[in-house]
């Protein structure tokens, strides 16, 4: 059984070999965490897929950034539409 550190190093090596670029890889409870900067979206995706192909990896958190990466931003808005269903809205605690 490989240690988390050994597995992280193996994933890191695989990513470096395939993309030709370096990223930081961490392993904890079967979750592979990828961090760093790569040159393209394709390279970042490939890194995620490479990590995901390891049997001992349960899931992958891919925080690799690349030029032009879209950042999630939630638009705060209040709708004019009435909610469907019961009157549960009246029981809400509004922040």
């Amino acid at each position, binding site marked *: 059984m490989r240690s988390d550190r050994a597995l992280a190093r193996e994933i890191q090596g695989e990513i470096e070999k395939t993309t030709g670029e370096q990223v930081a890889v961490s392993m904890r*409870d079967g*979750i592979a965490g990828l961090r760093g900067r790569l040159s393209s*979206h*394709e390279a970042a*995706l490939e890194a*995620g*897929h490479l*990590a*995901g192909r390891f049997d001992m*990896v*349960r*899931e*992958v*958190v*891919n*925080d690799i950034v*690349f030029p*032009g*990466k*879209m950042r*999630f931003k*939630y*638009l*705060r*808005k*209040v*709708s004019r*539409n009435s*909610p*469907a*269903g*019961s009157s*549960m*809205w009246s029981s*809400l*605690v*509004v*922040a």
Partner: protein
Amino acid sequence: MVVIGGGVIGLSVARELSQFNLSIALFERHNDVGMDQTTRGNAMIHPAIQAKYGTLRWEMNYKGNPMWDETARQLDVDFKRIGTLVVAENSEEEALLPYAVDTAIKHNDPEPKLLDREGLDRIEPGLAPNVRKGVLVWNTGIVAVFELLIAYAENALSNGVSIFLDTGVIGVQTEDSGIKAVDTTRGTVKAGILINAAGLYADKIAEYAGDRFFTIHPRKGETIIFDKSYQPVRTVFAPVSVAAESQESKYTKGGGIIPTTDGNLQFGPTAIEVCNKEDVSTTAEGCDYLFDRFAPLLERLKPDYEKPDRGKIIARFAGCRAATYKEDFIIEPSKKVRGLVHVAGIQSPGLASAPAIAERVKEIIREERHPSVNDKFNPVRKRQVRFSELNLKEQDELVRANPRYGHIVCRCENVSEEEVVRALNDKIAARSLDGVKRRTRAGQGRCQGGFCMPRVVEIASREMNIGKEHVVKSEGKSYVLSRRTK
């Protein structure tokens, strides 16, 4: 309890959980249900032959597929088992057919049938003379997907679920490692259980709750739809060359030739990784790729039928699949946060798997919370009258009873004013032209709204009591009219 996400997964889970005595609220960020993934796919109920055997994705597909007959019956939704037909074009391909049968058997799909020419003619008449053998995977189905979403929502509502559209989740509060409340764009709701069925943003919800252990990367699929006058196939049509390619595909099956319950044919979807989860743009390249890939196959294998024609493409659309890097479904209670259940990474065959996923979530909640059973739960929902489906006598009676049925708004799809009015006033009411279109088919025909759109704008303006210039195509500021001109 809060369910985040008003796609087929969130809605089916909410409906399933209404079998318990729980106070359930479902939040959907869009102004309608199923706007991200569910209505942007191919509406196919997949057989369990493409998902990797042994994965949760396969298991849910395998268990979910046979549940559709009963689900569609309960919800009164159009559903047909049309089968997938894999045909061989030459002796080399014929030699591969037993492998297709073996694959289907290995995946526990019931009774794939190896067909000779006679058998093929019964299923798919008019095939080219060189096609002598094929395999029928009979349990492939197609469903009227928007009708299904409305049906799930209506049935959930009638069983006590509250559905809040236009309500995005912007935070999750925890206390003592348990769910405490959910912050939305419209206020904060106290909740002890949170079902994360947020599709493309499930990783964001997990992060809000402090349990981010996966990343969703969007994979876009484009689809093209043909006019109803072009109906060359009855089955999901997959020549060996396409089926073999699908098996080799790293991430997804990469599209097919698929009829819809409404009688249109579709090619697609494609599978392209994109970096923006909101990227639902269609491209000339995507359209060309689909046409160039599938049209020659139909031309070759259905020579007696009308030649595929780009002029018969009436619409194209795209959506993003919510893929994780393990390419498997995640359906599990959080290991860190009590009361949080993730239903994430649900991509194709998510629709086919939905009833099984809902049942799995119900079992998780039953084991964790031991809720009492809602004796009043009623799984049956009845759909409303569709004018175009009635015979002349029935139509006449209906018009006499309600003259608004006599005002045909959409000539292509034979949709009456009453149906449009109903769509705008239902429990899950349409709030846009697209909402009306999805509920009634007004605007989905050959002219794509060219004739009926002004009339629908007028009715929407009247029924929603807003100016015509405030009627939107989809949501936000997608106004149909820019200003009054005279």
